[in-house]
């Protein structure tokens, strides 16, 4: 730097600049090898090191990790197609008379929003395709994020250090529902308008502030002229901004914490095994984006969705049979169909419409609250404070899996209840009977699902144990010299075996006394007792992984396997249990 021409350092100002270099830095070996554009950017921002690091990042390869990607790509497709739609859609409830090319609606009075949606569908080339791509991508977005959420739950990927990401995911999921609802209400057709009418009814049911909230949101009487433009602002600006911000935080966290991976040979809690971004993952993930996009386009080419011209413009005195919201609001609609009318009470002359409020106002916050809180509940019950980067096979966490399936069953009953009238006509049943069945089912079926799932998980674990101990049935029948027939079993190779035994032994938490030396009860003992009981509920019945000794025993003596099984499965009864060894609860990783 000091090979520059000397600046006259007589004046103070010049002395300050004495160290400035006059010539550009000589080209180093590194910058010469960088291409034109990349070099230009690097000269100005210096991102080479960071980009290096990102390009070498390793991502594990499993199809179930792509579910979140499907959601992300679908959201991007929605952003793209949605932007196109904003060029033609008119977000106004102002009245107009239709004079486009769709004959059955010519001369009919309707809102500008509806008329512009008809124009997009019939008079703008490719408009129908873009509209259908937008709606299909929106459905796939929520389908994929729900499947992704289930995967994360059932594999325990929400455990430390990913609790925050789980909460962000729950918020994303909830906002996606609202975004979808706002979106399909924009065309102001009969079906979505009926949904808005129901939404106004929900808001009215809120105690004390209901009518004020309803008049505030709709800007007056229902339907009013404000709701369409307001939903538009929410749908194209407010929610996409929040969704993009949250989802960016979501994937940055994944990059920082590195993706989890399934247990397997070579995979430990301290590494990530997979492929680097450059070139494999860039090609695979980038290619998958094109696959999702292309599939969405094909879906929009072949399958019609939201045929607004059939429903007609919104009219508060008309309705269509088979009025349902889009699938992701189905669970709330089903709850409203199942809640009985006697749940509306009169308190001091005011109606308390729990028949509406429970399903319309309380259900979503309670559901999402429970979901968001789950990682903390499970961490408290298990007392597990370690970082987890290896996923659980769902069968190895029978109680968590069973709880998840029970919750899913509850959700599923509500969702299917929203289709009760379609079930009635397609299956030739009485809609009243279907409703009674679901009313009972919403309580009974989750319990049954919990019990059945837990038993199935435990059985699968036992079947894994058997596979390890006895090997794979080879199909070859062997006859010994004594005349005995048996089927030869092939022992598993160590890689396949590792998949079946590579999980941690579980045991319920111990209860440390609860009573001190003088017989005085520990003040925190009630919390501890609850914790121990929950821990017992979680891990009381468990199937341990096969140990090398058990395997050796099985190989050497064919009769010993009964004894091994009896010893491997243990049930812990009572609260005086063995303390978990430090190794089980400490920082060790496998």
């Amino acid at each position, binding site marked *: 730097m000091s090979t520059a021409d000397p600046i006259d350092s007589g004046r103070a100002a010049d002395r300050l600049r004495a160290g400035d270099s006059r010539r550009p830095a000589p080209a180093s070996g590194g910058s010469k090898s960088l291409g034109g554009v990349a070099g230009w950017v690097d000269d100005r921002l210096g991102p080479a090191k960071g980009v290096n690091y990102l390009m070498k990042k390793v991502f594990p390869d499993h199809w179930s990790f792509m579910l979140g990607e499907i959601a992300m790509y679908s959201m991007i497709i929605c952003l793209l197609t949605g932007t196109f739609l904003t060029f033609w859609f008119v977000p106004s409830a102002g009245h107009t008379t239709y004079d486009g090319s769709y004959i059955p609606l010519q001369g009919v009075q309707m809102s500008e929003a509806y008329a512009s949606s008809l124009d997009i569908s019939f008079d703008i080339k490719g408009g129908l395709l873009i509209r259908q791509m937008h709606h299909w991508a929106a459905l796939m977005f929520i389908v994929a994020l729900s499947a992704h959420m289930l995967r994360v739950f059932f594999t325990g990927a929400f455990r430390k250090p990913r609790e925050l990401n789980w909460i962000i995911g729950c918020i994303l999921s909830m906002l996606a529902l609202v975004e979808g609802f706002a979106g399909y209400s924009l065309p102001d057709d*009969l079906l979505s308008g009926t949904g808005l009418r129901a939404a106004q009814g929900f808001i009215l049911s809120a105690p004390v502030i209901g009518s004020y909230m309803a008049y505030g949101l709709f800007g007056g009487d229902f339907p009013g002229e404000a709701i369409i433009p307001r939903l538009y602002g929410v749908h194209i600006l407010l929610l996409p901004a929040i969704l993009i911000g949250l989802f960016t935080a979501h994937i940055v966290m994944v990059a920082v914490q590195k993706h989890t991976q399934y247990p397997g040979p070579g995979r430990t809690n301290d590494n990530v095994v997979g492929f680097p971004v450059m070139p494999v993952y860039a090609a695979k993930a980038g290619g998958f984006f094109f696959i999702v996009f292309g*599939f969405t386009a094909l879906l*929009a080419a072949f399958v019609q969705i939201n045929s607004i011209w059939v429903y007609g413009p919104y009219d508060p005195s008309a309705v*269509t049979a088979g009025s349902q919201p889009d699938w992701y609001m189905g669970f709330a609609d089903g709850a409203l169909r199942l809640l009985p009318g006697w749940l509306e009470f009169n308190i001091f002359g005011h109606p308390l419409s729990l028949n509406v409020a429970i399903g319309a106002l309380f259900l979503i916050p309670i559901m999402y609250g429970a979901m968001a809180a789950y990682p903390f509940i499970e961490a408290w019950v298990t007392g597990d404070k370690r970082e987890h980067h290896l996923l659980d096979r769902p069968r190895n966490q029978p109680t968590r899996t069973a709880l998840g399936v029970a919750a899913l069953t509850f959700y599923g009953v509500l969702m299917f209840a929203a289709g009760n009238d379609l079930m009635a*006509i397609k299956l030739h049943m*009485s809609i009243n009977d279907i409703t009674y069945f679901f009313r009972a089912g919403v309580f009974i079926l989750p319990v049954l699902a919990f019990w059945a799932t837990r038993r199935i998980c435990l059985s699968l674990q036992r079947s894994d144990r058997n596979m390890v101990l006895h090997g794979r049935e080879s199909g070859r029948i062997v006859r010994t010299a004594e005349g005995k027939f048996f089927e030869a079993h092939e022992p598993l190779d160590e890689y396949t075996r590792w998949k079946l035994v590579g999980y941690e032994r579980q045991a319920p938490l111990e209860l440390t006394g609860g009573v001190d030396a003088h017989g005085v009860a520990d003040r925190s003992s009630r919390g501890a007792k609850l914790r121990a009981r929950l821990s017992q509920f979680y891990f009381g019945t468990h199937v341990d992984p096969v140990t090398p000794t058990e395997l050796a025993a099985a190989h050497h003596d064919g009769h010993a396997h009964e004894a091994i099984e009896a010893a491997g499965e243990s049930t812990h009864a009572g609260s005086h249990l063995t303390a978990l060894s430090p190794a089980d609860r400490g920082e060790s990783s496998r």
Partner: protein
Amino acid sequence: MNALASRRRHPAAIALLLLLGLFVTGGAYAALAPKPAVAAEASSDQIQQGKQLFLQNCATCHGIGALGTDEGPSLAGVGAAAVDFQMGTGRMPMAGPGIQAPRNVPSFDAEKIAAIGAYIQSLAPGPAVPDAKYTSGEGGDPGKGGMIFRTNCSMCHNSAGAGGALTRGKYAPSLHNVDAKYIYEAMLTGPQSMPVFNDMNLSPEAKADVIAYLKTMHEEGNPGGMALGSLGPVSEGLVAWIFGLGILIGAAYWLGQKGA
């Protein structure tokens, strides 16, 4: 002064004037009032044939004089239109017991149905089979028909006419592939759970508009692709979950597999 004017104070003049007034208004009403849209009249041979057929096939449930029994309602006043609808769509004779008579293959040909219709019409007057000009679908205004349809019909039959559920296992059937004549008659006679849309409620022109709307809807087809039964978001959600997620998971699985 002419002869008529000179007799204007004759006592009979006021009576004649009143009579003239009555004839004029009555005649004007008869000429201008909305007429029921009837087809040709029946002949007495036809009525006899109809009576025979009725006694052989219908009287068991509907009674000898069509006045009803425990098994079937009275047919007094239902009109030939109801007979044409019920028998023409195969709903009657009812194939088996049930909460509702479903559409079926008709058991009788058009001639016999017309005969039974004539017989029932002769017992007590009721709505007659509509004139073809109202049921051809030509000349009706589909825009107006659509507005009428959405207010009066889509809540039971669905916006696309795909059908809908009623209580206790009853249902409003699909309107697809239904002859326009039967749609008209159904509106006019209100079969089973369906209300009656008489000609004062929906005039023949209004009914023709509805038929024009349904015809135009059918011709418009499903521009966006497969309509999935026109059942709305439920079928779309099922396609997204089963077909959409299934194929994309398949693609993801293929992506992760080790190459050959």
